[in-house]
């Protein structure tokens, strides 16, 4: 099967509608199938089978063919130009006495985007202006990041950071650069762990995107799919004809169903015009969006939440990577890098970075989870076809010997995959492993790659907020 046989995204609403219709038909079909048994002598109980819950999960990929975006249900092995993964999921639940509801009309769904709380868009002038002055930038050129003690301003283009109390804007080469970077990492941790809570809500205004942009097309088709599933499952725009005979008997016993928990997840790469970025030479940064569809006081709403795709705070891969990091080789490497050459002034007491202490540090850095646990994020994605490794950064805060808290930033090349039996397989390679920064060894300061990554991430977030929403 080749891409030219792929399913166009236009077919998605029809497919989802068909699945919804089939499931409701199945509910009655099951009851109908029980009729012969009930009509017979039967057993101890007079029962009918009831479809109590069904949860649908559709996995989709996005490709592009001759300048045309197609969303398809297939993936060829090794296909490199699959640039969007999408998940559509919803549940059907029986409802005893459904309230009459009007059909969802085309175009009636209102899209709202939630900006994470850690990216405040309404920083007061007296707080924002000193930071903007340090960066010599206008408000629209920077991204504000809220942290525990205030607001940091990041200039994605210059990679400079300004934060309260600092006399100058910090450049990546400054040893003090690590402090706002750590604060930003914690803010992102709160964001992806959900501890941050919802932030400002913007009405999505794709006015700055071309009407036929990929983003608009994808979003419209996903929304249309929800609309049609709701209408067909909840029979909002159709009246089922009265049946006769056994069919009528089954019809009278079949409950009504409603669509619950309808959501989609997207992982995509878009350019400033809202089009999918395909070629490797282009900017390949990815963003994830989760869209929840629901009716709020009779108003159909699609609520978009953005997420950075490459951050880990929990899960199997996260635990496996930290487990690998606590292995002998990485621990010895960290211990060696944190042990000063003779005569070098060092803030850590002698012996603090022994392998035992380093291993205990990694364990303590995981804490009890949440936003303050060790943060792992991918700053460079390896090419799957070439089996090249990813480059991941570990941000760890814990107790090293008698010193606490100690903050350490590490970089490692990692491979993550699954064995044939489905078991997770992770590996930290010797090559490229390095301690980039340690709060108690200021001369260890190699944060260029990390600052590059954050600059790109913030540049994309800034652009996303600008192009997909109006205040």
């Amino acid at each position, binding site marked *: 099967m080749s891409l030219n046989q792929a399913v166009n995204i236009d077919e998605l609403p029809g497919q989802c509608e068909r699945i919804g219709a089939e499931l409701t038909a199945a509910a009655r*079909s099951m009851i109908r199938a029980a009729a012969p048994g009930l009509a017979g002598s039967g057993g101890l109980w007079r029962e*009918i089978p009831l479809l109590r819950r069904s949860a649908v999960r559709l996995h989709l*990929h996005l490709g592009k063919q001759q300048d045309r975006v197609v969303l398809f249900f297939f993936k060829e092995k090794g296909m490199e130009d699959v640039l969007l993964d999408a998940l559509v999921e919803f549940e059907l639940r029986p409802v005893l006495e459904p309230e009459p509801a009007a059909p969802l009309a085309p175009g009636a769904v209102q899209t709202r985007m939630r900006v994470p709380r850690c990216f405040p868009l309404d920083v007061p002038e007296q707080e924002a202006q000193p930071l903007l002055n340090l960066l010599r930038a206008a408000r629209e050129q920077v991204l504000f990041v809220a942290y525990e003690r205030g607001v940091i301003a990041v200039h994605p283009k210059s990679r400079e950071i300004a934060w309260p109390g600092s006399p100058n804007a910090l450049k990546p080469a400054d040893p003090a650069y690590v402090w706002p970077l750590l604060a930003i990492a914690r803010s992102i941790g709160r964001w992806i762990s959900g501890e941050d809570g919802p932030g400002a809500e913007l009405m999505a205004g794709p006015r700055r995107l071309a009407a036929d942009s990929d983003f608009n097309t994808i979003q419209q088709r996903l929304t249309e799919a929800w609309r049609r599933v709701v209408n067909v499952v909840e029979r909002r725009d159709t009246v089922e004809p009265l049946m006769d005979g056994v069919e009528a008997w089954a019809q009278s016993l079949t409950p009504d169903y409603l669509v619950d928990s309808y959501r989609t997840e997207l992982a995509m790469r878009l350019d400033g015009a809202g089009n999918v970025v395909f070629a490797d030479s282009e900017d390949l940064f990815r963003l994830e969006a989760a869209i929840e569809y629901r009716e709020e006081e009779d108003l159909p709403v699609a609520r978009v939440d953005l997420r950075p795709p490459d951050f880990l705070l929990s899960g199997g891969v996260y635990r496996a990577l930290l487990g690998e990091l606590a292995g002998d080789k990485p621990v010895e490497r960290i211990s060696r890098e944190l042990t000063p050459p003779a005569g070098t002034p060092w803030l850590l007491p002698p012996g603090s970075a022994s392998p035992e202490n380093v291993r205990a540090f990694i364990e303590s850095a995981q804490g009890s989870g949440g936003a303050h646990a060790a943060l792992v994020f991918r700053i460079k994605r390896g090419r799957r076809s070439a089996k090249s490794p990813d480059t991941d950064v570990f941000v760890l805060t814990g107790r090293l010997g008698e010193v606490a808290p100690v903050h350490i930033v590490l970089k490692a090349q990692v491979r993550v995959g699954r064995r044939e039996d489905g078991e997770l397989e992770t590996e930290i390679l010797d090559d490229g492993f390095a301690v980039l920064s340690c709060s108690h060894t200021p001369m260890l300061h190699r944060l260029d790659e990390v600052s590059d990554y954050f600059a790109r991430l913030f540049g994309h977030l800034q652009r996303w907020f600008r192009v997909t929403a109006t205040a």
Partner: protein
Amino acid sequence: MPEITKRLLDAKGQAIESAAQKLRQLLDDLGGSGGRIDDQIKVNKADEPFNFPGGGDDQKIEDRLKAITAQYSAVSGQFQQLNAAVNDLFAALEQPSPVSAAGLAAAAPAVVDAQRTAKPEEALNFAGFLSQMGQAVVDTQRSLDQQSMAYLAEAGKAGFMVPMAFRLPKLSGKMLFELEYDKEAGVHLIFHSRSEKEIQRNQQSIEFDIVSAPAPPDATDILRRRLSLDLVFDAAARKRVLDLNQPKDSQNALPQEALDAPSRILILRVQTAGQFKHLVIYAGGEKESNVGMWIADGQTIQVVYRFQKQNSEFEKRFREFALDLAERQQEFLPPPAA
């Protein structure tokens, strides 16, 4: 009490085996092949498909239930055939139409043949599959009911045993399927196949819970009323039906050999949606395919299944049934008028 536990286990095991045996019998009757279907359908067996009250303490029971789930999966294709045949039977009784499905008797063989020749991806759909699962819940519960009744009888004799019954309250499953694109047919559903394919398709899924819900108190009575069938013995009533017969050259006419031996004609009164209709069945004595069915609605009579049209195992059994019933009704029919 270890004796009771073992007995319980044995009873459940017997029920499970009984259900499996029944399915196999049905499968054999239809001439299907379990292995072939098993290759086409994969049901996720790791999702605790059955929940049994108290079953968590008894690994053996769970294992057996998982085994029966696998067996149900293996024969689910045959279940669909049976359901389709039964559904078509009801459809023929309720909404007779010579055009649809060529009638009652042809329905089952037609479905079977379609299943045999169709590609696996064309053979199943959500409604059909879930319908089979619902039927499996009902059938398994009926098997357990039999064991419950046996257990209760034994408990009554023993005196010290706590009266109890076995319940299968829920079936949870996961259906894996794919969407396949065909240039001519468009997009359609296929179920997950074990066969290796060069193309990796995205696997889609539907998880479902099916529970046994009590039927409303009057549901069974209503159903029975809808399905009531009575053999008609009254001479006047039989005459009224047979007088509707059409001219010999009509495609809806009863064959002459049936009219020559009216006492061998079966007439069943069918109540549907408050109205009475009549099914007319006749089986001849020579060829195995000599069997036919007509429906009379008070105004006209129409053929449902063509006499001597096909020669199948189903026809043979249908004919034997009709011949047997015709023999038995003789003693109830009034003597022919002189």
